[in-house]
């Protein structure tokens, strides 16, 4: 809102037509406006020339800067998710603290799994250099094959195997993003696959993103199932967050004993509310394709505090 300014000043005709300079031919005849425009032109031209010179002299450095800027432009908060969090808090659907956590997650961990930040992860921002790591897809496939075979031999549910962990042979530790563990962990509690019998459509590890097309790390496993198939809880615990984001769609996070947590994403509906206690095998959601998904499936993640574990050992049934 602004007040109306009365009596606008109009520049004299000579100033508007600019004929003084033409008549006299003197540089001193430039009006302040013309001088300002000339300065702007020189500044813009100088900046353009500077960029060209830097690009010619330091092409590698320029490419690095360009990459950094592109990365920064891609690493944005999910504004729609922030708005939704605020809207949910206003409606009383979620508590203000839950909404603040979601907003914090979206602002400081954009594009990441909500579970790690919500559960007090040490923060993975900046790790992996914005997916700078380049790895052959072939290696990832080999690992997936090995991991599935190993998991099939261990267990698909019931009590936690007390035997030795299965090592991950095809990923050297320096190739992995921070906060990722490929080896099987001993959970110490009873668990069950959230979608028993479902096929793994995408494994934990590096993969070509099915929508964005770039190679990136997949922090969970995708279990293919028809829309509406009930998703059951992995183990006893309590629901710490129910939310929705552009990338994960409708999701929920369940905290289990020992600092473990599971995330269930792309659901068509979440059937439990935040704060409720849930048991192993209890229905918590239904399979869907909300968020960034190419078809109905469950994106399932397993976390040990701020560390991403490979869920494949715990969700694949033998045979």
């Amino acid at each position, binding site marked *: 809102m*602004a007040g109306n300014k009365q009596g606008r000043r109009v520049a004299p005709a000579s100033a508007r037509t600019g004929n003084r300079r033409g008549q006299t031919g003197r540089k001193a005849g430039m009006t302040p406006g013309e001088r300002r425009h000339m300065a702007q032109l020189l500044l813009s031209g100088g900046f353009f020339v500077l960029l060209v010179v830097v690009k010619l002299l330091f092409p590698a450095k320029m490419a690095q800067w360009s990459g950094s800027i592109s990365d*920064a*432009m891609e690493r944005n908060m999910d504004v729609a998710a922030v708005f939704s969090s*605020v*809207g949910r808090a206003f*409606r009383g659907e979620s508590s203000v603290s839950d909404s603040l956590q979601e907003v914090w997650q979206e602002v400081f961990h*954009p594009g990441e799994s909500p579970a790690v930040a919500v559960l007090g992860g040490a923060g993975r*921002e900046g790790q992996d250099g914005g997916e700078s790591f380049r790895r052959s897809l072939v290696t990832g496939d080999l690992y997936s094959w090995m991991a599935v075979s190993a998991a099939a031999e261990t267990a698909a549910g019931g009590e936690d195997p007390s035997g030795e962990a299965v090592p991950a042979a095809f990923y050297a530790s320096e190739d992995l993003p921070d906060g990722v563990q490929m080896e099987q962990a001993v959970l110490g509690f009873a668990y069950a696959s959230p979608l028993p019998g479902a096929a793994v459509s995408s494994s934990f590890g590096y993969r070509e993103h099915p929508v964005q097309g770039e190679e990136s790390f997949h922090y969970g496993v995708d279990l293919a199932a028809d829309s509406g198939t009930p998703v059951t809880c992995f183990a006893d615990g309590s629901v710490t967050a129910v939310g929705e984001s552009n990338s994960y769609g409708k999701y929920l996070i369940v905290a289990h004993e020992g600092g473990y947590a599971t995330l269930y994403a792309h659901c068509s509906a979440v059937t439990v509310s935040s704060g409720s206690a849930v048991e192993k095998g209890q229905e918590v959601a239904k399979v869907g394709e909300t968020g960034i998904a190419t078809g109905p499936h469950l994106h399932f993640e397993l976390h040990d505090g701020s560390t991403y574990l490979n869920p494949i050992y715990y969700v694949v049934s033998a045979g």
Partner: protein
Amino acid sequence: MWCPPDKGRWGALGLGLLCAWFIRLCGWEPFLAIALAAAVHELGHYLALRIQGAAVTGLRLSPWGVVMDCRRERLSYGGEALALLAGPAANLLGCAALCCLPSPPEALIGAGLVLGGFNLLPLRKLDGGEALCCVLSFCLGPERGEGIAGTVSRLTAVHGAGACLFVMLRSGGNLILLPALLLFLGECLIRKPDQTL
């Protein structure tokens, strides 16, 4: 959004760039939600002005949004403050109305609340800062009121700029906050302390 009347020369270009920046980084849906919230916000200002009998002389575009020109001669300090606060109030009422729908659009509700809340910041370019100036001017006189409001505005701008910089550096991105940072920096560096309404 408030803007001095003589600063609208590059308004359309600036607003176009702001919209393009927002759409590029956030997509169309959040942009449409914010645009709708902005329309409700301006409608609130318009209705408050009309109810008080103040003539609205036109709408202008500024780099930070839409500016409503009006004749203030018929408005008291209280009336002007009410007209200024009517924008955020309209956002709040709109969000409350949306909550009554069978399946409320949460993103739209959030957009209205964020827009209304941002406009309540005590920054002289925003409704909150101008309303504060009106209230202080009424209580303490125009000179002291504007002086204190200007100081509060600059302090807000310094903290706002710091917060934007912190978020961008800490997250290594969030360039969506760049326009807000420019707004705050402009208030810190350019605005004269004795600038009047």
